[in-house]
């Protein structure tokens, strides 16, 4: 199982949207995909028409009260989901009193090895919190999602700094990759940011830039991945291309 942590220090950079639709694109390729919503805002959960009011969520999995296997939900598009709930915000406070809480997710996911081909972790917008630290320790690839707008590059560089610090503190070495999101080629600022990102991140930046699309908003409203709502849309093409890249791209040292 290859695990990706979608992270950025900046909110609104497209982490949740990328997580949902990338999971949908991978599932459409016949991959067994697990999506874990680690954001207490639970937008990925809502975006897949799920909720965890009366059922176990990521909090119980992280604290060890429930096994990960018992928290799995079937979501649209052939995706398996471990949902989130507002009570996940308690995790930071509860885990702060315990030793080794940064490795909780890694331990919880160990029994799922072999059951899934890919696991996507949708992180909260705080890159220096315990939830993101858990995701980074549990993943093989940190996927920085960078919106192609003003201040986005600064957010990405800050997140990269935090990730580098976390990696230096641990003995794990996940690779760092970057995906450009919300790209609108009609906007000069978007084109400038993409050129700057290519200069800054080089081969770490995926070839596919996810274009902004009204279809993605509609898919969020419908609670399904874009592959179910508009499989021929440009957004679906972008996520399919990104899924291909994930499958084909070599690991960068």
């Amino acid at each position: 199982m290859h695990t990706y942590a979608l992270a950025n220090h900046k909110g609104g950079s497209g982490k949740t949207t990328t997580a949902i639709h990338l999971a949908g694109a991978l599932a459409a390729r016949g991959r067994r995909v697990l999506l874990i919503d680690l954001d207490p805002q639970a937008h990925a959960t809502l975006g897949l028409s799920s909720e965890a009011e009366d059922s176990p969520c990521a909090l119980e999995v992280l604290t060890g009260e429930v096994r990960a296997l018992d928290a799995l939900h079937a979501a649209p598009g052939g995706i398996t989901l471990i949902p989130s709930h507002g009570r996940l915000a308690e995790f930071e406070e509860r885990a702060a009193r315990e030793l080794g809480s940064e490795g909780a997710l890694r331990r919880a996911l160990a029994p799922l090895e072999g059951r899934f081909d890919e696991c996507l972790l949708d992180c909260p917008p705080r890159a220096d919190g315990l939830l993101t630290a858990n995701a980074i320790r549990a993943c093989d690839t940190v996927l920085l999602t960078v919106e192609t707008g003003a201040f986005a590059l600064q957010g990405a560089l800050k997140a990269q700094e935090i990730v580098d610090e976390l990696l230096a503190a641990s003995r794990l070495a996940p690779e760092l990759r970057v995906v450009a999101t919300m790209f609108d080629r009609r906007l000069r600022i978007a084109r400038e940011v993409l050129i700057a990102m290519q200069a800054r991140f080089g081969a770490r930046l995926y070839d596919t830039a996810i274009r902004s699309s009204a279809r993605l908003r509609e898919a969020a409203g419908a609670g399904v991945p874009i592959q179910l709502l508009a499989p021929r849309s440009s957004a679906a093409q972008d996520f399919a291309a990104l899924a291909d890249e994930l499958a084909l791209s070599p690991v960068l040292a």
Partner: protein
Amino acid sequence: MDSLALLCSLYGQGPVTLRRLRDAGCRTCDDVLCLEPTKLARALRTRRPAADRFQREARELAARIGEFGGPAPAIESNELAAASEPALEAAPSEPTLEEAGSQLRPELLDGLDSALCLRLRALGIERVEDLARADALDLARSLEVPVTRVVRLQFLARRLADTRVETESELRTFTLLPRRSQLSVARFSPAESAGELAPLAEQERMEDWAREQAFEPVEGAGELAAGPFGHAAACAEAGALDSKAAGPFA
């Protein structure tokens, strides 16, 4: 992301265009430029004018990121500021004094950026005089820019061409005026820029000329290659322009 993927994201339909170009054997922007326009049009499933435009955009991007085939150089800081500036690094070496008088180059005229300069050269307009003589309407159509922009550029070109022939001294004066982009670079790497912008012999001649004209070149004016106008105001302007060029991303 390689340069071809960047090109397809910026000017094409992203992964669809990228796949078509790769199927046609393209790996870099350079490969796109080497492809026959008709073959490119067939590969992109589009018409010839769109293929021509795509090649023009590929040429501009390659010049912009300083690449023809190789990987993009890593930019350590001020990425966006550098990306927002016209491709100074990719511009050809500074022309001689005589050439500079007539050859079109970015920033020579207000509003003439590197992209437009490349497109003008692609149309065979390489000198200020050529620009001044060209038909404004045809040029606007070919460049796909508003005719008012062409008319304004032609006005500036005619004025520059008229001024140029007056005296040799005056020729030196305006060709060695510090351009906005030169001032930015000069501030960051004065030694290199001085070497690029004005050969030593020329600099000495300019200083002699300034003395004759009772100008007092300030310290560092040589480094800025500002010639007779390398006074404090020019230096102050350089600072102001730098901060503008860096924009909100500095």
